[in-house]
């Protein structure tokens, strides 16, 4: 499904780039169809960077990202943007995930509009209503602004937006670390349910080993930019 081969990313800081931090150090990672791989590690271990590299939101310094047989590192702007519809990100902080000036409806409709997937306003509305029900929100939520929703509701809306494009692969970057425990349970259950229904592969980034054990088929432990252990 998706594969990262020899991925390396170095951040340089200081005036002359003298201080270098190796965020990801020649990592190989493979996630199969319908598989959930959990990436566990402390903050600063490079797990978030690795997730973003697989989505090509960050360009790796070395290595390749192969998605469905296509080397993403060789693609340019437009082609890459088209492939991106097949892979999505569920970010850590749902309160930051939406443009604060946009209503939830417009934010969820945005991917459809960018990729011109709905022929009419009516079709667009139909798709969004169906999705919003599937993630457990109500129609009234659509007309609100992000700051009027709770963290759990927002994270459901984030999931709805990611699903508009029928992705095959999602990176969930600590999707519940800012949420309450009972909300965490419902969000994670929701993600697992969609995986079964739609056949999505997940890279599930978390620092909670207990959570990883429940969610994942395989667990990778990351430390200092390297994958140091694997258990299934």
């Amino acid at each position, binding site marked *: 499904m998706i594969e990262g081969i020899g991925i390396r990313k170095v951040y340089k800081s200081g005036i002359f780039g003298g201080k270098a931090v190796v965020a990801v150090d020649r990592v190989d990672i493979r996630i199969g169809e319908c598989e959930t791989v959990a990436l566990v590690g402390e903050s600063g271990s490079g797990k978030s960077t690795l997730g973003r590299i697989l989505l090509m939101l960050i360009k790796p310094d070395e290595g390749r990202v192969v998605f469905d047989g296509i080397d993403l590192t060789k693609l340019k702007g437009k082609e890459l943007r088209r492939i991106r519809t097949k892979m999505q990100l569920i970010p850590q902080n749902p309160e930051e995930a939406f443009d604060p000036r946009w209503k939830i409806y417009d934010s969820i409709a*945005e991917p459809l509009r960018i990729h011109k997937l709905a022929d009419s306003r009516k079709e667009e509305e139909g798709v969004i209503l169906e999705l919003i029900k599937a993630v457990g929100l109500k129609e009234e939520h659509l007309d609100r602004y992000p700051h009027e929703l709770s963290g759990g509701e927002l994270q459901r809306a984030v999931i709805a937006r990611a699903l508009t494009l029928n992705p095959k692969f999602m990176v969930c970057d600590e999707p519940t670390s800012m949420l309450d425990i009972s909300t965490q349970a419902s969000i994670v259950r929701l993600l697992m349910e969609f995986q079964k229904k739609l056949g999505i592969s997940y890279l599930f980034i978390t620092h909670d080993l207990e959570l990883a054990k429940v969610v994942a088929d395989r667990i990778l432990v990351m430390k200092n930019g390297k994958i140091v252990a694997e258990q299934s």
Partner: protein
Amino acid sequence: MNRLCVTGLGIILLMVILGLLAPLIAKNPYKTDLKDRLEPPSLKHPFGTDQLGRDLFSRVLWGARTSLFVALTISLISMSLGCIIGAVSGYFGGIIDDIIGRIIDVFLAIPELVFNIALVGIFCAAYGVSTWNVILAVVITNWVSYARITRGIVLSLKEREFVLCAKAIGAGEWYILLRHVIPNSIGPIVVLATLNMGNVIMTIASLGFLGLGIQPPTPEWGQMINAGKDYITTAPWLTFFPGLFIALSVLGFNLLGEGLRDVLERRSFIE
């Protein structure tokens, strides 16, 4: 509604209305009457007359037209220019940002008024005397503050997760800049623009006072003060009324700007 906002807006509206109604309520500001020179304020001439016997009330009102129109033109041009340059610089980063950043630094290092005087002088020598010289000169020094502020806002917005999310759903760079980044930076820029209007009015008046701004006989406050300064002991109203109007309009914009800042910042705090 915020009290500062209302007061500031009231003063500005008063200025604008007086300026707009000038053709109706004021007399011809150019008509000289040497018999009525340097008359003190009276019912016939509420602000008195100047050294050429022109009605000062009419000249001050027409002056509001000139000052506000020129200041607005300058602000709009420098705001659009500054915001686009700042946003591009902040969003795309890299070498573009380095170059623009250094240019901004150079501009900030030169005292604004001195720079303006020099520019007006050069333009006058090159193209002859015209109001556009003033506009151009002030725009050249003014866009920098917009660019600097916009760049800062855009740099911080760029790191926000919703921008990353937009990228992840396949949005292009220009789309994100125009639809997400710029709309979210408008609040502080509006505040800056309002506060800056006051500055620009001051600059225009300063240039006018130095004889470099809008040229007589067009009524302009700074230039009127300059003409009136020779009579400051015998006819103080010649300097007082134009000065009052400069002060009031600057105050109006400053109050409105401060008020807007309160309102916008409180809202972003709640959000």
